[in-house]
């Protein structure tokens, strides 16, 4: 396989790679936003005063692209509130006070899965979304209708972000779940070929996966180069199967389904136990962290409470991220920022590292374009954006930018290229909407 040479050599900082996740003590409360996934926000089905147990449904799925939410603690619903989330918008959230008992909901039992439809239904009910970071409801992604379209299942275990090792730990500590998940996919999605893509900097995980699947000829473990971003969907498809997903198309259009390794393991666990997704492996690391580690943290536990438990001094923290430093989202307020379904790490950056270096003028060095995994001419996109040239932005295909951050990372002028690309995508969307409106008028 010829790997793409593009991307950046980012520092790995996999300090926690050999740390088995430790269960965090039961939090005093949970704050659960109704929107932790891509798609329609879930609808709360509890009201203040209601008692909930571990695994009790709190919010139900509100449409074809949505996902239910369950409680990670037993306790009492305190209130339904509006909180400001990391993208600046407001979102409804359920506040649950824990009683510390961790009583499990009496209705929890393994789902009955017998065929494709019941498998998809189970995934839907599990509350599982893309745990690699995307947060797209997994059932929607797997519901390809005709399973003969699937030629390859690509298991994304690249974990290319600095610091994060939660997928690594899933592969090592929950290898059986991964094995069971592959069996489920083989059985119900008719998957004939499985490729597990892991970056070379995780030798232990690679070894473990190779051992686990040595008798399954359908499964190949692919060692990917440690060049960021191996985990970008189109990059991992290219580097495991050799296939190129056409711009604007989905992986399934080339016969691929891509699934994050922790997402897979979670599906297997739900089908074995009936316990939906209520807790996560979360890597706690970053330049403000003295003792990095991996933890099992309930979905909804506030970052502020995590900091108290781990004795992280807020004065030494300058920036907090959901995820790692390349694609992580900056947390605005610690008191209203809970662990989300797709949180695989919280990165705490020191005050010194928190300030982004000042942007200077583009020197036309070409590094952004040279390293972009999507082969975009990023500096030209920035120029077109400055001129508000929507046509040019469309021609430059800013729409396929995966916002991996490679361009900004390598830019010697520290240009805010990812930010510009996000805005440029909006410009192109507006252009397309305008054109559609015009079309409609003509008719």
């Amino acid at each position: 396989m010829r790997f793409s040479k593009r991307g950046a050599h980012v520092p790995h900082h996999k300090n926690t790679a050999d740390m088995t996740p430790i269960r965090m003590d039961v939090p005093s409360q949970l704050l659960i936003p109704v929107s932790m996934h891509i798609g329609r926000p879930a609808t709360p089905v509890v009201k203040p005063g209601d008692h909930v147990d571990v695994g009790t449904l709190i919010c139900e799925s509100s449409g074809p692209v949505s996902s239910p939410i369950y409680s990670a603690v037993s306790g009492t619903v305190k209130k339904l509130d509006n909180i400001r989330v990391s993208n600046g918008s407001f979102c409804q959230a359920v506040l649950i006070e824990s009683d510390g008992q961790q009583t499990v909901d009496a209705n929890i039992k393994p789902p009955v899965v017998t065929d494709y439809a019941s498998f998809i239904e189970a995934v839907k009910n599990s509350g599982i979304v893309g745990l690699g970071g995307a947060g797209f409801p997994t059932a929607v992604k797997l519901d390809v209708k005709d399973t003969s379209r699937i030629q390859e299942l690509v298991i994304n275990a690249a974990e290319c972000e600095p610091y994060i090792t939660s997928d690594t730990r899933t592969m090592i500590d929950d290898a059986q779940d991964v094995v069971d998940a592959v069996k489920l996919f083989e059985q119900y999605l008719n998957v004939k070929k499985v490729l597990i893509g892991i970056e070379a900097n995780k030798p232990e995980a690679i070894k473990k996966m190779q051992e686990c699947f040595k008798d399954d000829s359908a499964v190949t473990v692919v060692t990917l180069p440690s060049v960021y971003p191996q985990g970008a969907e189109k990059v991992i498809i290219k580097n495991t199967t050799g296939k190129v997903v056409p711009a604007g198309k989905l992986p399934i259009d080339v016969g691929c389904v891509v699934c994050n390794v922790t997402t897979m393991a979670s599906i297997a666990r739900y089908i074995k136990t009936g316990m939906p997704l209520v807790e996560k492996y979360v890597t706690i690391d970053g330049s403000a962290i003295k003792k990095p580690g991996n933890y099992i943290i309930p979905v909804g536990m506030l970052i502020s409470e995590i900091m108290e438990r781990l004795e992280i001094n807020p004065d030494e923290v300058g920036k907090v991220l959901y995820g790692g430093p390349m694609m992580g989202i900056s947390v605005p307020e610690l008191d209203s920022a809970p662990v989300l379904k797709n949180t695989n790490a919280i990165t705490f950056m020191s005050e010194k590292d928190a300030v982004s270096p000042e942007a200077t003028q583009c020197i036309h060095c070409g590094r952004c374009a040279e390293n972009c995994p999507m082969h975009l001419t990023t500096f030209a996109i920035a120029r077109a954006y400055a001129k508000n040239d929507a046509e040019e932005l469309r021609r430059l295909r800013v729409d396929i930018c995966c916002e991996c951050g490679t361009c900004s990372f390598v830019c010697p002028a520290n240009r805010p290229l990812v930010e510009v690309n996000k805005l440029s995508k909006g410009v192109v969307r507006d252009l397309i909407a305008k054109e559609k409106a015009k079309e409609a008028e003509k008719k």
Partner: protein
Amino acid sequence: MDKKLHISVSPHFHAKVTTQSIMLDVILALLPTTIAGVLIFGVRSLAVIAVSVGFSVLSEFVFNKLAKKPMTIQDLSAVVTGLLLALTLPVNIALWEVAIGAIFAIVVVKGFFGGIGQNFANPAITGRVFMLVAFGDVVSAKSFVGKGIVDTTASATPLANMATAPTSMIDLLLGTHAGAIGEVCTVALLLGFVYLLIKKVITFHTPVVFIAVVFLLTLLITKDVNTALAYSMSGGLFIGAIFMATDYATTPTRPWGKVIFAVGCAVITVLIRMYGNLPEGVSYAILLMNILTPYIDKWTEDKPFGGEA
């Protein structure tokens, strides 16, 4: 928890390479050439360099202040421009002329077009060409004799006296012959090239193709290997190909763009040298190709991943 957090759009990590570090690398890469120039042509070359660099930085400082722009002298690009300009001048040039050339390069060529990265023509080259036009022959170092520790008694640059007495290979490599301060010592320039390659400041494409095509075309036309070698190793080809034709702002970004650019430069250089009666076509060639850079960039733009051609 009452904690004011920094908020920003990803990524939150940045590579260590900055505009300033790149410029510093270019300066370091020019160090062997600068030292060789001083050794060959004597201490007066230091004065030329000091004036050129000094006035470059000063004029950028004053321009930024007057134009109320953010201060940019700390990015060291003005130092690079000043150094490059000095290295393409002969040692006996009047210092006031050097100052004017430097001011022109920074203010007119760079500042008026929006500062670093925005200029379409290489400031150092344009500054030099401006001086050629404004002050005439004295700039072109045709008949200059060195006064450094090395005895450079040749009375003309290798390009000018090609017909009479070909310069020896050793002289061409070491630079012990007449010429501009920084264009003569091929070995020192190559050292700088290797450094820039190691530090990944530039790629090999432009210099290698530029020099190789000039050599081959000259060989084709003159049918003499020695002449072709002498032509390639003098007249500012190495400093132009390594340090000017690789300037980020004014040359293409993608590998094939660089190749096209370099071939264009080489062809124009040889045409000017052979048929234009001008000894050194390198400056003009690069300048002309600078103008084509935006178009070359567009032709050689990458195809988006999975996109139509």
